[in-house]
């Protein structure tokens, strides 16, 4: 029985890099899905029902089964649509390496990236930028080892770590623009510069990667909200 579009739904929001991970994975596997967007500031009944633990996007709904947490979703997509291109490498050691760096990017590197935007003074911003650059140097090394001369961490085709890390490129570019910093630098991380261009141009990615200008608008709205929330009530 053919899977109809309504069999696969993604609950999400277009600016979210975590939601992007799910969409890129489905695109890679040529799976049709319905993208149900949540509105900023409110959570739909469907979201609350399908992710009662965290109440967050993304949620993948396959038939009537919800799957939550972006990297869990990516692995699920890879296993269910096994006939499509592989997202995780075949070799167990390569899989462990890809998972290791995906965890690092999600738990350490991305928070340090957000730290640049959150920094109030110049000193703090400088320190945050240094932290992000240290991380990028490590990822450049990981890229050299993993790509083995090809374009992607996954080799000829984008894979798990490309998706786990590449989803943050939109926000990286916004942070570069709004803070007047250059994080991905041809002189320091030439491999990643090349990788970033190829990743964003990939057919599975280009339609779901938000434009930098649109994301910058969202960033400004969020920053204003945070400042408003921090200000004492009148």
């Amino acid at each position, binding site marked *: 029985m053919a899977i109809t579009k309504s069999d696969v739904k993604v609950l999400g929001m277009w600016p979210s890099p975590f939601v992007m991970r799910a969409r890129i994975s489905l695109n890679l596997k040529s799976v049709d899905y319905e993208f149900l967007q949540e509105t900023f500031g409110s959570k739909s009944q469907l979201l609350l029902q399908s992710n009662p*633990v965290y109440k967050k996007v993304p949620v993948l709904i396959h038939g009537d089964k919800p799957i939550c947490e972006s990297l869990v979703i990516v692995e699920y997509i890879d296993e269910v649509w096994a006939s499509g291109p592989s997202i995780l490498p075949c070799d167990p*050691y390569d899989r462990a390496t890809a998972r290791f760096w995906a965890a690092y990017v999600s738990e350490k590197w991305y928070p340090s990236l957000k730290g640049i935007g959150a920094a109030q003074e110049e000193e703090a911003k400088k320190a945050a930028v240094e932290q992000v650059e240290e991380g990028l140097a490590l990822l450049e090394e990981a890229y050299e080892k993993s790509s083995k001369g090809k374009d992607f961490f996954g080799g000829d085709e984008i894979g798990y770590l490309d998706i786990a890390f590449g989803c943050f490129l939109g926000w990286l570019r916004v942070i570069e623009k709004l803070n007047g910093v250059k994080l991905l630098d041809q002189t320091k991380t030439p491999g990643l510069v090349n990788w970033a261009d190829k990743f964003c141009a990939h057919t599975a990615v280009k339609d779901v990667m938000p434009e930098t200008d649109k994301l910058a608008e969202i960033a400004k709205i969020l920053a204003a909200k945070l400042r408003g929330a921090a200000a004492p009530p009148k």
Partner: protein
Amino acid sequence: MEDKVVLLDFWPSSYGMRVRIALAEKGIKYEAREENLADKSPLLLEMNPLHKMIPVLIHNGKPISESLILLQYIDEVWHHTSPLLPSDPYQRSQARFWADYIDKKIYSLGKRVWKEKGEKQEATKKEFIEGLRTIEGELGDKPYFGGEDFGFVDVVLVPLTSWFYSFEICGNFSIEAECPKLVGWARRCMERDSVSKSLPHPQKIYAFVLELKQKYGL
């Protein structure tokens, strides 16, 4: 060619215990090397340069770290015996989801419960108990998290139960009173050799906690 498996470990670490249990379940022979975390070995620093933490598995010279990633590696390499993850993709996704939840909402809070004091500790305790209640709800009336068979989520959670006594004394609460089904599940797991031989006695953990408290003035 025989496999050479080395585990860099630290006896009170619940993350290390996860790996001990998995290796035991699969009947894998390995060399256990005890690390002194106050004086990390050159081998540990070489094998895990980024995080410099245990557990690290060195399989035929190649290092793997991060306990949840390690468990999946062990399950994939030694796939022909005692599988930890189920075979159905949806069941696997649920096991991964709950393993991640246990790290984010239970282990991370447990680490703080015994260190903190006063109001801060009360708040951490409350969150910790909520986490335990949620995971107890997921267990339901099943013998194990995976159903009839001991599996991935059981391996991920059970090591923390060796620390329960320490949490209870330091936090002045009873986990059995809050989550009786979970404590029943822990007892059931302890009937397995792989678990009982991998977990230190709770009193030993408590003695270790007292040492740390004295050392760091906590």
